[in-house]
């Protein structure tokens, strides 16, 4: 089979699987977050934490719960790394250096999983399992909870209650993430992903040399790494490592895992607001952007210039032969469109256009379909912006799902749209203006600039993938990227929950023929354009000096 045909087949299989799963999974999640009943294990958790599971929270309380929970998580993860050498199952690893420990703690709690270190030579099994893997669940659960709170803001009327953050986070873990990742882990083990508690084996290669093969609980972590759109690899080579991504089938399955929850959440949204067509419109925008990005990336990889590349049929540098070009492009597109950041190829080695696209995917705010929860709330905020402009154009105070978008609502939405570009652009500018920032660059010219821009884009959008070519484990980058990740995660959450609180307080304006319909193809096109123009254009100047300059030269 030619590479092209394989690519079509893979993408087709993926679409079929996602279409098949998104309805039952979306409906299931809607039930999870609306059911009044608590599970037995959940009740134990609530009793242990001291939470009244039936008391609903106002948005400030909901926010405080989420922030407090995340802060405690950061502290716990930081201490776990710093005290690693004193704790069991450290595999003899020393304590993690403080800058790196801070960066990693923030990185995993913010669902970013930016890794400034090499996993197999820095973290022992305890940190991997009790620290990183646990955060893979919890950070995804926090994203889900915040998204659900926003959806409740749209679904409810005349109330100041948004639900209970503790209940939402707990249920996200016990009823969604844990069961799904157990299933996924089994598939991964069957597919050849390693799962053991061994410190590693010394093997003799065919050539007679001796090689150390590090083992560990890889499959279990790999499952939630993809499902929770986390992306932090057990190994430094991430999903390109043969123990983490042994075959093309498994790699494709991993792509499916990253996309399955984010693509199902619009269905949950539609269910909860009582109009499934609304969810369909949102998923339509996500799918349009994703398909366009994948098509462009595959095309860019396949038509790469240069005699050697033409001979090979496509750009192949930095790719695993067992995956091939199309699957690498698919994985790279999916990982940057979600907030995963796992990689099965080196984005740094993509053609300039391909690299530009992975960056642009993140810059759009990771909304197509985005991270677990964060993708949905990001897209809904952009929908608010789109509805506002379009709503004015039909001569009414704009309403989305019967909720009026007034000054306060627009303040939250506008600041949301402003936040991430501000973080990314300021971070990049500071790095380029300081010796500490420029000192880590391994490349010069526009490619060097692309690497720094990519790092801040990845951190600010909580993606976690890296362009390589940048020595990021330095005090400057550990601090700056850590801040970018923290602000990039929590400032939007504050705004989203404040918006949700405002929306929930409103009544609902009944829809009439004069109301802007938000479930039609026209709106899908409009929202897609808003994502591209309002968010995308912000980065145009910076891109023109980085990957765009490269691509056009």
């Amino acid at each position, binding site marked *: 089979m030619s590479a092209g045909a394989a690519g079509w087949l893979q993408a087709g299989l993926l679409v079929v699987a996602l279409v098949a799963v998104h309805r039952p999974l979306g409906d299931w999640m809607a039930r999870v977050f609306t059911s009044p009943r608590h599970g037995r294990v959940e009740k134990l958790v609530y009793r242990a934490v001291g939470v009244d599971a039936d008391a609903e929270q106002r948005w400030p309380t909901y926010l405080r719960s989420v922030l407090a929970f995340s802060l405690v998580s950061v502290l716990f993860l930081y201490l776990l790394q710093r005290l690693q050498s004193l704790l069991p199952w450290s595999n003899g690893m020393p304590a993690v250096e403080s800058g790196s420990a801070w960066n990693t703690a923030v990185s995993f709690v913010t669902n970013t999983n930016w890794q400034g270190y090499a996993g197999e030579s820095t973290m022992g099994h305890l940190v991997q399992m009790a620290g990183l893997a646990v955060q893979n669940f919890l950070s995804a659960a926090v994203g889900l909870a915040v998204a659900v709170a926003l959806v409740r803001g749209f679904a409810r009327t005349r109330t100041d209650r948004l639900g209970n953050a503790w209940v939402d986070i707990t249920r996200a873990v016990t009823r969604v993430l844990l069961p799904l990742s157990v299933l996924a882990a089994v598939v991964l083990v069957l597919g050849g992903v390693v799962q053991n508690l061994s410190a590693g084996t010394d093997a003799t290669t065919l050539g007679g040399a001796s090689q150390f093969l590090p083992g560990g609980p890889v499959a279990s972590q790999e499952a939630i790494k993809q499902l929770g759109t986390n992306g932090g690899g057990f190994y430094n080579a991430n999903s390109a490592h043969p123990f983490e991504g042994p075959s093309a089938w498994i790699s494709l399955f991993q792509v499916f895992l990253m996309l399955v929850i984010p693509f199902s959440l619009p269905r949950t949204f539609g269910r909860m607001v009582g109009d499934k067509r609304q969810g369909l419109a949102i998923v339509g925008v996500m799918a349009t952007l994703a398909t366009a990005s994948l098509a462009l990336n595959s095309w860019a990889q396949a038509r790469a210039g240069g005699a050697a590349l033409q001979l090979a049929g496509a750009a192949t540098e930095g790719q695993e032969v067992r995956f091939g070009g199309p699957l690498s492009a698919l994985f790279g597109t999916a990982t940057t469109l979600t907030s995963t950041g796992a990689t099965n190829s080196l984005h740094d080695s993509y053609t300039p256009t391909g690299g530009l696209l992975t960056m642009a995917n993140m810059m759009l705010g990771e909304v197509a379909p985005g991270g677990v929860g964060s993708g949905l709330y990001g897209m809904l905020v952009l929908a608010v912006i789109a509805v*506002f402009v379009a709503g004015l*154009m*039909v001569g009414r105070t704009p309403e989305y799902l019967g909720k009026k978008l007034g000054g306060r609502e627009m303040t939250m939405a506008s600041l949301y749209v402003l936040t991430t570009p501000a973080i990314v652009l300021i971070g990049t500018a500071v790095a380029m203006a300081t010796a500490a920032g420029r000192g880590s660059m391994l490349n010069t010219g526009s490619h060097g600039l692309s690497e720094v821009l990519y790092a801040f884009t990845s951190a600010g959008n909580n993606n976690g993938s890296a362009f390589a070519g940048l020595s990021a484990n330095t005090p400057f980058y550990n601090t700056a990227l850590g801040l970018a990740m923290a602000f990039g995660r929590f400032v939007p959450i504050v705004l989203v929950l404040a918006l949700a609180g405002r929306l929930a307080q409103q009544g*609902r304006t009944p829809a009439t023929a004069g109301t802007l319909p938000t479930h039609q193809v026209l709106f899908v096109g409009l929202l897609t354009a808003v994502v591209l123009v309002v968010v995308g254009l*912000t980065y145009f*100047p910076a891109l023109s000096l980085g990957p765009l300059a490269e*691509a056009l030269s």
Partner: protein
Amino acid sequence: MTATLERPPVESRPQQRAGIEWGPALVGAVRKLDPRGLVRQPVVFVVWVGSVFSTVLALTDPSLFGWLIAVWLWLTVLFANIAEAVAEGRGKAQAASLRNARTSTVAVLEDGSEVPAPDLRPGMRVVVVAGQVVPGDGDVVEGIASVDESAITGESAPVIRESGGDRSAVTGGTTVLSDRIVVQITSKPGETFVDRMIALVEGASRQRTPNEIALNTLLSSLTIVFLLAVVTLQPLAIYSGAEQSITVLIALVVCLIPTTIGALLSAIGIAGMDRLVQRNVLAMSGRAVEAAGDVNTLLLDKTGTITLGNRQAASFVPVGDATLAEVTDAAHLASLSDETPEGRSIVTLAGLGERDLGGAEFVPFTAQTRMSGVDLPDGRQLRKGAAGSVQTWVRSLGGAVPPDVAGAVDTIAASGGTPLLLAVASGGSARVLGVIHLKDVVKPGMRERFEELRRMGIRTVMITGDNERTARAIAAEAGIDDVLAEATPEDKLALIVKEQDGGRLVAMTGDGTNDAPALAQADVGVAMNTGTSAAKEAGNMVDLDSDPTKLIEIVEIGKQLLITRGSLTTFSIANDLAKYFAILPAMFAGVFPGLDRLNIMRLASPESAILSAVVFNALIIVALVPLALRGVRYRPSSASAMLRRNLLVYGVGGVVLPFVGIKLIDLLVSLIPGIA
């Protein structure tokens, strides 16, 4: 009801539509360059700051390019100010004529003492006689007079004002033409109707409306984002060896931030109010105008709004052994001297021409007899009137009522009409001849208007004192969605509250004092100028023409205001794409020659490209001023259809137009030596 006030058809105040007066606007625009005023418009303020900087740079490091950019940036600010000044200018002319009406009048109190008009306090009673100007707002408490209100309404036909009832309100500045009235003053000095009108049309009391605030938030946010994008670009450019001059960066910022909509935003708001004023409607707040665009439910009074004020004869129905010709003839005779509109309509329907009734005696309608008619010289007595009264009359004269009368009367009542019984008495016997079918006549064109409203998603409810059956019949004929029959003021209020609880916005008109609570409760309450002070106080708009149908136009103006804002915002944002393609290659193609491929407009030189973008950005503001003032074309249609059209025109148009515009400007600019 207003409809009882006989007036010629109303024509709107002559409009100063001739064109835009650019001269005075320019003066106003220059005055507005004061930054203290500009802070209110963040987008324009950023341009102002940029202009100051680029001027300083042009002074310290003179170059033709630097000066041209500085000049065009100042022009951008100036054009933005012109838009506002033009909009305000229109109001100023109107305010001036209103001020004339207000000038120093001296009030004469009841005891004969004189008080200057500005010193009048609420509660004081003043006497106004023919030829005098009413010194302040108030209610007539004694007497009746005809009043010339043309100073306020632009309407020259005098109106009647009398104590008690719904026609007691007089407005300061109007002139009493006949008789003498005593007016109890109701307004504080400086807060009279005329004062408020002046403030409104001048835009002095203009406060930002909710939608304007929300839009301003979005625009400010976009401004900050683009400001950041450009500020952070410099370190990247320095690293890339393509450091940019501050002038170029300022030019880039000004081109990217939404200057078009930022510049036109307040002009659009002022013009929206102005459009209402031109239709003789005064909105007490911009908020009310916006609310009008959002209205879901219109409460319309039946009489005067949906139907002509008076019932008209529609047919004659003979009963018993009478023939149609007989009935027609009798109805004609009975109504010849009847000057009521119903009477005249019967004459018209009969169509029998002039007849000599020498010696006939007209019997007028009284509340006791509830009949009218004529006693002819030949001894015949013709009577027409309410069914019950006429039957009693016939029986009292020994006549019989044919059995088919009841059926005919019921049929007419069921169809929403009013049955009038026609009877004749002669030679000692009396008999019922037939029934005259009087019906409410729906104003021409109303059905189509309600159809339009339905397409816009607006529900119409007819308010009437008629019974349910009659009301339904008229509603069906007029194409009204719902009725509130046998409505009391309390019912009206309850209906409004119910609609609002369901999340709907309600608009209504009213004139009587008992309408006041409902007017105050409604989101858009339009009081008729002929109405009472209480009604005018309670509503948030006053229609000087007292034309209840105008509510529909008000809704359209509200919508048009929002559409204009939304469309120009879309246009403004869509413009950015072309500007990027003009400016970015100009900035960086020197270092990265590949970026010249983005120069798809093939602009002559980096300087000409940047200058062209700035010039386009400035000129587009002026070009759009007429559109901002006039408002985007609005045709009632569904939201989807409207969105599709406006997206196509202002979204797609906004992407394409600047490519063409910048290219054309570049062709001219590149002729300047030293730029190409």
